[in-house]
């Protein structure tokens, strides 16, 4: 444990860890020292001069080194000048005074100087109402300025730093929080100061502007209204907004969010989501959110939302009652017996998946997970131990990222892994091409597509990297689906698990395996017993299929064909998709914003989300629809209370034994302290009052022997001579149903691409930026050519979910 230091702040005795900054120590003691540039997640800067306080230290006798005593108390020597609480660290016996006349005068003077260059346009400012400058002015500022208002500088007020973030130059107080966040936390220094002195201004020269998937966070920590999001600016006033706790549904990290809602005339007086804000969970997302999570929520309010049940009549979908629609489906499913197939995806909540699995089991059907990534059974065995917190990993620990571009697939994991590396953790990145993670890695292993398993196996042999991994105090492996299909990823998971087991990195916190899933709740689907199917076409053909939360028809022509040949198709979803178009029955589900439930993150943390907006039309929550269908089939499933479903789930699944719905809502104190009352300290991020979730205990931690399924040798295809192998890669902003509707992201989503090695491109006679046609296995599409010379010449990278169906490596032609 770090040494503790005792000091006095405003007469209150405080004991804090050695090395704590005075401003933070005060915060811990409930004393607010005003700050602008200081942010507890950033390195001290001491630049805004807001936190001026008086600091005294016990006087030491020069000769003896002993504390000089006076009237039985240590004699305190005060510094002649005010000092910044944000840069001075506590020391034993220190005396801090934050409210003396002298300190107040210093604080007041800083506010005055800041305001004299500020436009004071609060009435039209997005930050108005949640603005640290506003708040601190009221609390610490002077009533009047002594300067001539007309001499104020007038600067540009609407400067797009990119299409997502806007800058108001007049409002900027040059605290550099945004620049420092991008540099220190995100590791992407795409914001900078131009010029100097009073003309200092924020600029971004990247292309596209402000090219970072973390950009939205800067608007949270900006202490004034200088940075605002294109999504929210001029959208609403903070005081109109309600806040509801939620979980981001965009990736397996499971970031805790707050949905800010209000009634809106535009929406016919309905309550709508106005913005997504981070909600603190230091073990998951801290106080950050990636831009996908922040801006892609719009799919829930898409015009294509389904609101009424429909059944096919005369080859057309027509409105039907719930009763009629579920009955029709139930009849077909019942008749199908073992030809009944549930195809569901990790977009659903645990309770939905649990009911679906129960239904399939009871009806003698099959529950198939809609996914081309395997290994979730293995992560249940050797997943990261309960108590894992990447934010606490550092020197002496190791993290291996293999076959995954975390920046694109799970940005907040990327951020936290990067910071663990900053703190000294050994980061090993093994990927067939260069990724943004490489820069922070101690070791970069570049293997050829197809060599994933061999690469991981090599890490359990001798060698510099292998040794460093083996001797690490703690080690986590992130494995993904870069260049791999179901087969390949299953094999890779097994290889990674074996490595972890052999090096004794399982069954403890901060040790184990994490799957970089493609959906928010893929891990949850595995936990309740869903399994992907290697030959999905075969599994669907001629069957009676219940498709929930998936669009196989839109995703893949081969699956479309298979479903055309299905006996019956019932589709349950929130949006109209290509699959609903061919459905016999369509069942409208509620979006995650309209209901509650739980998700299980890739780190196997089960977390609750809550309803924020009213239900659209007749839509129902998935678990409830399933229970209604089940009832018609004679199967009784809980369908009205999500908490009851959860508790049944917890009772029937080993890993969930100790969990209860209430327990998931528990919170405990977190550092830094953030929240509504002290916006100037941590930013506008929300305090977590509705649940930190609970991490599942992996089998390895629960005790007992862990048997890892064997690796299949031929896990993935390799490019052959004279043949181009198309391999799937994952892209953050894609055309997936949960992203595509966000118009703001259109430019970042871009078009479908194929990435080639320059020599391959040359041979094929295509060049960067040109268009080419790629074809394989019944798929043919026009794509934009990109060049990446870190890949081998035999492969062509095709991003998933960009309109080109690719589930696993496949021989292709590019013209």
């Amino acid at each position, binding site marked *: 444990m770090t040494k503790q230091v005792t000091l006095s702040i405003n007469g209150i005795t405080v004991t804090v860890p050695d090395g704590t900054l005075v401003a933070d120590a005060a915060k811990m003691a409930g004393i607010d020292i005003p700050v602008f540039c200081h942010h507890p997640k950033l390195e001290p800067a001491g630049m805004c001069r807001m936190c001026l306080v008086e600091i005294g230290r016990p006087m030491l006798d020069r000769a003896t080194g002993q504390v000089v005593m006076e009237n039985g108390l240590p004699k305190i020597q005060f510094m002649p000048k005010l000092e910044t609480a944000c840069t001075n660290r506590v020391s034993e016996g220190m005396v801090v005074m934050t409210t003396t006349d002298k300190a107040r005068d210093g604080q007041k003077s800083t506010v005055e100087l800041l305001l004299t260059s500020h436009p004071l346009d609060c009435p039209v400012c997005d930050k108005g109402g949640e603005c640290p400058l506003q708040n601190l002015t009221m609390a610490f500022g002077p009533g009047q300025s002594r300067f001539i208002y007309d001499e104020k500088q007038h600067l540009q007020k609407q400067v797009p730093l990119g299409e997502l973030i806007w800058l108001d130059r007049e409002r900027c107080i040059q605290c550099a929080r945004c620049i420092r966040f991008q540099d220190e936390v995100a590791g992407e*220094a*795409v914001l900078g100061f131009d010029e*100097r002195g009073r003309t200092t201004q924020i*600029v971004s*020269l*990247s292309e596209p502007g402000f090219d970072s998937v973390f950009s939205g966070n800067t608007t949270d920590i900006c202490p004034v209204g200088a940075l605002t999001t294109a999504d929210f600016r001029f959208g609403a006033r903070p005081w109109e907004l309600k806040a509801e706790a939620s979980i981001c549904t965009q990736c397996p990290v499971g970031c805790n969010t707050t949905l800010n809602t209000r009634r809106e005339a535009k929406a016919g007086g309905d309550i709508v989501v106005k913005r997504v804000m981070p909600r603190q969970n230091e073990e998951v997302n801290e106080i950050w959110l990636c831009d996908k999570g922040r801006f892609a929520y719009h799919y829930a309010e898409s015009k294509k939302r389904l609101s009424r049940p429909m059944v096919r009549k005369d080859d057309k979908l027509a409105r039907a009652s719930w009763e009629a629609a579920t009955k029709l489906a139930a009849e077909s499913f019942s008749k199908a017996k073992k030809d009944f197939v549930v195809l569901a995806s990790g977009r659903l909540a645990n309770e939905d998946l649990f009911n679906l699995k129960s239904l399939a089991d009871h009806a003698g059907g099959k529950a198939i997970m809609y996914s081309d990534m395997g290994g979730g059974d293995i992560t249940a065995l050797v997943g990261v131990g309960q108590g894992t917190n990447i934010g606490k990993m550092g020197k002496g620990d190791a993290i291996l990222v293999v076959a995954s571009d975390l920046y694109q697939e799970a940005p907040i994991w990327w951020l936290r892994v990067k910071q663990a590396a900053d703190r000294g953790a050994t980061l090993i990145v093994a990927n067939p091409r260069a990724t943004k993670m490489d820069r922070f890695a101690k070791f970069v292993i570049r293997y050829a597509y197809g060599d994933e398993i061999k690469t991981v196996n090599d890490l359990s042999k001798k060698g510099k990297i292998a040794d460093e991994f083996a001797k690490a105090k703690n080690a986590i492996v992130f494995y993904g689906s870069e260049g791999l299909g179901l087969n390949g990823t299953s094999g890779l998971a097994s290889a990674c698990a074996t490595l972890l087991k052999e090096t004794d990195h399982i069954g403890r916190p901060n040790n184990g395996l994490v799957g970089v899933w493609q959906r928010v709740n893929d891990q949850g689907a595995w936990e309740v017993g869903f399994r992907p199917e290697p030959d999905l076409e075969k599994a669907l053909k001629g069957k009676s299929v219940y498709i929930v939360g998936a669009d196989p028809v839109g995703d893949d022509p081969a699956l479309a064909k298979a479903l055309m040949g299905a006996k019956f198709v019932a589709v349950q979803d929130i949006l109209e998709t290509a699959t609903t178009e061919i459905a016999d029955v369509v069942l409208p589900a509620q979006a995650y914003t309209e209901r509650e439930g739980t998700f299980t993150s890739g780190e196997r943390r089960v977390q609750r989300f809550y309803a924020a907006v009213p239900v659209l039309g007749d839509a129902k929550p998935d678990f409830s629809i399933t229970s209604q269908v089940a009832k018609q089939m004679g199967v009784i499933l809980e369908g009205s209370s999500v908490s009851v479903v959860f508790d049944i789930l917890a009772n029937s699944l080993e890993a969930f034994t100790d969990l209860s719905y209430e327990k998931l809502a528990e919170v405990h104190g977190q550092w830094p302290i953030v929240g509504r009352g002290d916006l100037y300290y941590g930013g506008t991020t929300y305090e977590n009052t509705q649940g930190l979730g609970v991490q599942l205990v992996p089998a390895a931690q629960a005790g007992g022997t862990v048997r890892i399924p064997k690796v299949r040798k031929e896990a993935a295809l390799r490019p052959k001579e004279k043949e181009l192998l198309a391999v799937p890669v994952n892209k953050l902003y894609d055309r997936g149903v949960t992203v595509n509707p966000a118009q703001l992201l259109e430019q970042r989503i871009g078009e479908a691409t194929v990435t080639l090695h320059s020599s391959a491109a040359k041979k094929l006679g295509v060049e960067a930026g040109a268009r080419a046609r790629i074809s394989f296995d019944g798929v043919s599409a026009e794509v934009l050519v990109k060049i990446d010379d870190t890949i081998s010449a035999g492969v062509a990278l095709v991003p998933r979910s960009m309109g080109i169906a690719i589930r696993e490596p496949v021989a292709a032609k590019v013209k």
Partner: protein
Amino acid sequence: MSLEKTHPKEVKQILSKYPPEHKRSAVMPLLYLAQREEGYVNKAAMQDIAQMLEITETEVASIVGFYTLYHDEKAGKYRMQVCTDLPCALRGADEFMQNLCGNLGIKVGETTPDGVVTLEAVTCLAACDKAPMFQIQGPNGIKYHENMTVDRTMELVETLKKSDRGVK
């Protein structure tokens, strides 16, 4: 074109001054190199330097913006930078500047119509005992001209103009 291609020797020599893991230190000398031909640093050059040093273009631009001897806009071929700071002003720098403006027919900050000389006022150049004085920032670096008179300055301007025509 990349500086590594156009000035391979200089780039190598510059990079050799700093520990390889701190090659970012080379940003300032590389900017001088990039500025040599055109008198200012364009976006392509900033991109080039950013790539070479593995920093972002924004970081390079932020350096260009901070220091007054880097320019991101084209001006006259020679920047005549007259010190008008306190010590020089105590020795007639302001009057000198005024006369110079008159003679050149331009105001401070402006460029002669032929694009040869841009007249600028700058802060102390560490030549306070030799005022009036100025420096000329041109394609070949920076040169001091001390204890100047307006006449001698105008002669110098003529020479610059002539040599400029000679170059063309």
